[in-house]
């Protein structure tokens, strides 16, 4: 039973990762891509790890499960921070928001002098 649950969780997790990667390709600019990457990859990896936790605790590999649990905590803390740092860095570096963007209030306090097209860099 637990193996089936593990398998399902891991499959769903990998699927989320896949959608995240598709988003990485399809979205127009750095910020939207970061959104796709962060959300899907975080949840996908977490689901995979939860699968590992269940497998570990039910299958007698307690140490593995516990470490996976620690991994989840660590991932939830750090992944959004990394995304935030990347986005801020990109903005400060001068990467523009792409076409369908409707509003940019951040421009008021952190004006971009240089304009860099992220496709070319």
């Amino acid at each position, binding site marked *: 039973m637990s193996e089936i649950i593990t398998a399902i969780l891991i499959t769903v997790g990998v699927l989320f990762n896949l959608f995240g990667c598709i988003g990485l390709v399809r979205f127009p600019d750095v910020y939207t891509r970061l959104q796709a990457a962060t959300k899907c990859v975080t949840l996908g990896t977490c689901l995979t790890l939860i699968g590992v936790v269940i497998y570990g605790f039910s299958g007698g590999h307690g140490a593995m499960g516990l470490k996976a649990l620690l991994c989840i905590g*660590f991932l939830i*803390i*750090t992944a959004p*921070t990394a995304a*935030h*740092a990347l986005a*801020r860095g990109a903005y400060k570096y001068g990467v523009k928001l792409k076409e369908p963007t409707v509003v940019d209030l951040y421009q008021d306090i952190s004006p971009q002098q240089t304009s860099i097209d992220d496709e070319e860099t």
Partner: protein
Amino acid sequence: MTGMTVIVKTITRWTAALIFLYGAYLVLYGHLSVGGGFAGGIILACSYVIMILAYGGKETIHALPKAVAARLDSIGALAFLILASLGMFGGFFFSNWIRDIWPGQQFRVFSAGIIPLANIAIALKVCVSLFLIFFILASLRMTRKGDKIEFRSEEVD
């Protein structure tokens, strides 16, 4: 304000100690499981590197001053060498003399004689060296004034 936003700083505060713990775990259990002096030492160094990234060099160098780091660097290597030389008492260089007099129980922490101690020495060396390399490369600032290029270091001491 040097360094990054409050978010990054807070998260760094939370995680640096955890990274340090994990590195220590890898070093101390290197003879039983995956890990060892080099891998653990690099992770130990990462806990300081992440502090450099978040807070900037100035803040971090207070936590681990450069002179202390340079000394620790030599001390780590010396400790390893002394461990090896002490093996002469067991008859051979590098011989595992602790193991001979106190074998310990299999799958326990103290079961491999000098190997964990050697791991600790290597970890110290690797951690401090990597920290120094990263710090020195990170704290150099290049500024161009006409034809002249100046190197300015952010170091405090």
